């Protein structure tokens, strides 16, 4: 059963060594570590990570992040490492105090609803207590210098996502417009949908106690777009 969920973004800049002498994303990393600390504070049995990638599959949690594919002076590791989103999660977990079990799943960026539901159901159906960590970004089209330039539709889209995260609104996250999300270079649509669906299943099936009924207690720790990509850091407490 899912007891907590957390959302973190996955820009390569969260790998400290990529930004050179200056730690440009220090505040964002701190927010992520706070979210992970909060999500794991009740000693769950397991942290399950879901992040977007090219394909939907489970990954060996002993694999390392593949930082060198983005540069630095380090050598490329032999064989392929984790995809970006899971690599960032792996690094954040390593930097956190969490030393317990970890399970890593990627969900295809363009995963259709049944694929999302299938993975979410598998996670929600487990008996162990789970902290679910979803890696995903908002739109990358939020300014003249943004990776995808500017698209005015990005702003209301991201606002809606932020509101859903702040409200613990599983329906809103599950029903995000997949086609529009792709156009707006949203890097978290599928992962957020898996999280929301799994949480919804948990809340509905187990009737997890919560003062407002079937809604997790949500906290947003970070919501900003310093480089034209929207990042969210949030936690959801389900009990």
């Amino acid at each position, binding site marked *: 059963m899912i007891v907590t969920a957390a959302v973190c973004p996955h820009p390569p800049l969260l790998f400290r060594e990529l930004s050179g002498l200056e730690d440009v994303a220090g505040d964002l990393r701190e927010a992520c570590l706070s979210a992970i600390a909060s999500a794991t504070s009740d000693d769950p049995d397991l942290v399950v990570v879901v992040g977007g990638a090219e394909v939907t599959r489970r990954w060996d949690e002993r694999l390392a992040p593949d930082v060198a594919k983005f540069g630095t002076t380090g050598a490329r590791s032999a064989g392929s490492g984790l995809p970006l989103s899971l690599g960032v999660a792996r690094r954040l977990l390593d930097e956190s105090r969490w030393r317990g079990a970890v399970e890593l799943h990627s969900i295809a960026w363009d995963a259709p609803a049944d694929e999302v539901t299938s993975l979410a159901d598998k996670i929600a159906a487990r008996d162990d207590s789970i902290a679910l960590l979803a890696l995903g970004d908002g739109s990358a089209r939020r300014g003249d210098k943004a990776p995808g330039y500017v698209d005015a539709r990005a702003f209301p889209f991201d606002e809606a996502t932020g509101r859903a995260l702040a409200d613990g609104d599983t329906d809103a996250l599950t029903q995000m417009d997949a086609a529009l999300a792709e156009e707006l270079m949203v890097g978290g649509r599928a992962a957020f949908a898996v999280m929301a669906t799994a949480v919804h299943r948990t809340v509905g099936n187990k009737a997890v106690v919560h003062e407002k009924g079937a809604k997790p207690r949500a906290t947003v720790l970070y919501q900003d777009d*310093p*480089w034209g990509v929207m990042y969210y850091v949030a936690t959801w407490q389900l009990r």
Partner: protein
Amino acid sequence: MAIVNRTRDSFYDQGATFDEERALDRVRQVVADGADMVDIGGVKAGPGDDIDAAEEIRRTAGLVALVRAEFPDLVISVDTWRSQVGREVCAAGADLLNDAWGGHDPELAEVAAEYDAALVCTHTGGLAPRTPPHRQEYDDVVAHAIDSTLKLAERAVSLGVDRQRVLIDPAHDFGKNTWQSLELTRRLDEMTATGWPVLVSLSNKDFVGETLDLPLGERLTGTLAATAVSAWHGAQVYRVHEVVETRQILDMVASIKGTRSPARVVRGLA
């Protein structure tokens, strides 16, 4: 290594820091600009007014003492070929003797050993101090520079200079025409491969001027190009007039080589 001249006639600054207070201001400026060392000189490298040892000491030792007092951690070098001068400046606090005339006074290395100072061993092609090159011939200028500087280095070590405190300098333009200085730059990796730390003194020199057909004052770009190539080849100390620009070049080359992290990387990684 920033050049600080207490001379009236050095080729580049033409006496701008001859006055002791002006020289001290120059030290303050280059330290603020990022220099790790200063090289204080009291005699113009090329031909000019006769400056005897007493006058050279008067120009350099007092300034060394003032710099030592104000900057306890700064590496202070003095550009001199005379052992009498070396003795006085070491007593005043100098850390390094820049023997730019390649062992002309054999006792200078003994002074370095006596004061536990560092020493630069320079290739001059056998010329006496302040002598410009004339029809200088080498079968292989790089081999000659390596052979000559290594002999000086080993001799210094045998006299008691700490092996860790000996540098070698191919000495661009000293006993060399422009072709020969260009070849030294092109093949500087052969010199760094000896394992001795290499100092290069390229700043605004005639080989840059002749190569680009540019007068003094317009040689910075060419100097920096030679600096970049020398850095790529592994030179470790750069004797310069322009500190800020040199520091930028060295940081840039080090980052290209992968030995220094860039300052701030964000593009494409958000």
